[in-house]
């Protein structure tokens, strides 16, 4: 197989050995159903229990407040749709008399949050986007202006998936709850877990979404942490009905291999967070140096200086990001033109960058480099050369079409 230098770790990461082995073990050796009472089933149930306790201790909540799901996207949906449907149910199925509840999210959210919030319009909710500045930071005055009447839920990501912008979610949650104490707060922490600090209970943040495969865990598993136990009684309605798995909040036979793999990867990520992030910060500094040196074309860095260091977005104005990314791929470097969840529309401006007010010129020519601790500085030295060549090559291909 071709050896690529993988700079797309915000889309996914290489699965760690421990997780691969656990997945094998619970598929091949201890493959019984974790809901079965026999000894073999209980082995699987035990692994899931240990994972649940690990996350409970991490977020200082009760194990019942850890809900395993199929992905970060599902966790976001369980929080957003689950809260909305619960409210709708309590109102007897329509909001005709009580007014349309507001649902807020940042304008730069991942589609898992943004589309989920926007979809609620057809159920009688009123979705609103919280505007951001050119660094991707929430405009606080505008946020406060959206709190009367009090929204049902506000969703603010911890780390943006395109620029790495860090949102002070707990601080914002306090501001929101000072004005609207009953509003629920959700944070998509998929890009933040194992990289930056996350809330622990008791917290003004009510829901935290996590995903395993962004931290070297397996694909196909995530979690929703319900930070306040009371919320389990009334605030969320399940999206998937069936058996009593995950406390009835997510029916369907559990996958002990994936959940145990998530546990193993999360443990490694948190134990080594400091060392890994120091290395990654070094890579980020090096990349910024490379981009500051002459590369044959002007380069604009879209990520703010204080962004999470594992993600860096930059644009080469005038060149199409898709073309640049292909040229880099020819030179064995994998980078991203945007969120993998939206990359089929390669020629359209990146919606996150557009929401930050960036021009189409910048938003159509952006590349995202995202690191893991497995990347090395030497790779970046080679990347500098590859980027230079790719810029020349793409400019030549685009000819008179250069924007």
């Amino acid at each position, binding site marked *: 197989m071709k050896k690529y230098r993988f700079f797309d770790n915000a889309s996914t990461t290489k699965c760690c050995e421990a997780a691969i082995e656990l997945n094998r073990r619970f598929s091949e050796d201890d493959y019984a159903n974790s809901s079965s009472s026999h000894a073999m089933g209980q082995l699987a149930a035990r692994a899931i229990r240990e994972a649940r306790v690990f996350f409970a201790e991490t977020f200082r909540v009760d194990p019942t407040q850890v809900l395993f799901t199929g992905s970060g996207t599902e966790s976001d949906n369980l929080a957003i749709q689950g809260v909305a449907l619960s409210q709708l149910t309590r109102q007897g199925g329509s909001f005709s008399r009580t007014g349309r509840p507001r649902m807020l999210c940042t304008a730069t959210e991942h589609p898992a949050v943004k589309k989920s919030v926007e979809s609620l319009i057809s159920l009688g909710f009123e979705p609103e986007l919280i505007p951001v500045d050119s660094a991707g930071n929430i405009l606080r005055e505008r946020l406060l202006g959206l709190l009367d009447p009090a929204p049902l839920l506000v969703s603010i990501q911890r780390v943006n998936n395109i620029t790495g912008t860090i949102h002070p979610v707990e601080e914002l949650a306090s501001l929101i709850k000072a004005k609207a104490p009953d509003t629920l707060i959700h944070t998509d922490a998929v890009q933040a877990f194992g990289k930056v600090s996350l809330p622990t209970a008791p917290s003004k943040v009510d829901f935290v979404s996590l995903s395993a495969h962004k931290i070297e865990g397996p694909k196909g598993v995530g979690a929703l942490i319900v930070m306040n136990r009371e919320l389990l009684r009334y605030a969320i309605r399940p999206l998937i009905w069936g058996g009593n798995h995950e406390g009835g909040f997510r029916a369907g036979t559990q996958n002990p291999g994936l959940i145990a793999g998530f546990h193993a990867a999360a443990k490694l990520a948190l134990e080594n967070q400091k060392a890994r992030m120091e290395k990654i910060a070094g890579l980020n500094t090096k990349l910024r140096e490379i981009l500051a040196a002459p590369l044959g074309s002007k380069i604009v860095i879209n990520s703010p200086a204080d962004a999470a260091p594992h993600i860096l977005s930059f644009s080469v104005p005038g060149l199409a990001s898709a*073309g640049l990314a292909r040229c880099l791929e*020819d030179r064995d470097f994998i980078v991203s033109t945007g969120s993998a969840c939206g990359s*089929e529309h390669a020629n359209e401006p990146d919606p996150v960058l557009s929401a930050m007010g960036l021009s189409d010129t910048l938003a159509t020519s952006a590349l995202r480099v995202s690191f893991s601790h497995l990347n090395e500085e030497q790779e970046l030295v080679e990347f500098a050369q590859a980027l230079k060549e790719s810029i020349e090559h793409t400019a030549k*291909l685009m*000819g*008179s079409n250069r924007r």
Partner: protein
Amino acid sequence: MNTALLMIRYHEIALKGGKRPVFEKQLARNIDKMLKRTFGSDAPIKVLRQTGRILVEAPWDDENQAKAQQTLEKVFGISSFSPMRKVDTHIETIKTAALEEFQKAIAAHGMPKTFRVQTRRSDKVFPESSTDLDRIFGSHLHAAFPDLQVELKKPELRLGIEIRRNQSYIWSQKFPGPGGLPVGSNGKLLALMSGGIDSPIAVLQILKRGSPVRFIHFDGAPFVGPESREKAEDLVRLVNQYQPAPERMHTIAFGKIQEKIALVTDAKMRTVLYRRMMMRISCRIARRIKALALVTGEALGQVASQTLENLVTIDRVSDLPILRPLIAYDKSEIIALAHHFKTFDTSVREAADCCTLFGDRHPTIYSTPAEAEEQEKNFDVEALVNEACEKIESWTFQDSRHNS
């Protein structure tokens, strides 16, 4: 599985002369193959050739009628078909059954103003002539519905009676077939499938004239995503439903070749240059698979590369005829056909087209072969054609059955 005997009609006028038995044999074979594709190879299907028509015994009950109907509607060469009611060959029995069939037809289509009975004697078991029998059965029906007028030329309702030695057959319903000639009665073609609206319709139009069609797709990867190729595959799957034997799609890795051309040529000329390369490669593949000509979905003047000047420039490099069944069609006519053949929804799925890759926003409208040749001096045409023909992926489509 209950079966019915179906009478299959075809336009005899299209089948004149010495080719007629060839056409009939091919049509009978196609009906057999396509029904077996729908119902499985061990289904109770019999195809009998008779003078001027084909009789088919096929599954035909509440559960299977729609499937059989949908299958026969895709067999080019059939002009219409009718399920027939089986009855003992006895005048009184036939009279009663004819009345029943007549009432059934009225229940389904409403009361007609005019009707006629059309009797055919495959076996001269009765002494009366066919015309006499028409009159006997007709007056029996007329007695039951005295307001009805007899109309021999263009009746609103036609009741057919087929007299045979032991069992006779009655029909009143007539389902339209797709017309045309049976696929396989003409030579093989190679069609350039882009994934757009036009190429599948061009293929269907040419299948209708009896040529089996193999497919070639030019994949712009890695510069375009997999959507375009997947669309082409899905369209081939739809179009293959009209061929008795599903044909393969050959995919050419074209993106890197386009890149090499783009690096050394005028952006305004690139689309025409790509099209010339596609024709050269297609000709090579056509010879390899023994196809006699190429098919494209081009319509005169539809886009920049389809002006007459550009078509001439493109044609110059092809040493095989290029059939363009849609050359004189309006886009709206092509779209109407795409809706009719149910390819439209697949064709309009979002996907990048490789023809305009690295191209100028304002490509040339009037090119000449000399200009194209001048540009082609900048790269090694032969080497790139060889490169393209070396790594072809061929996709064989499952001979899909629609039931278990």
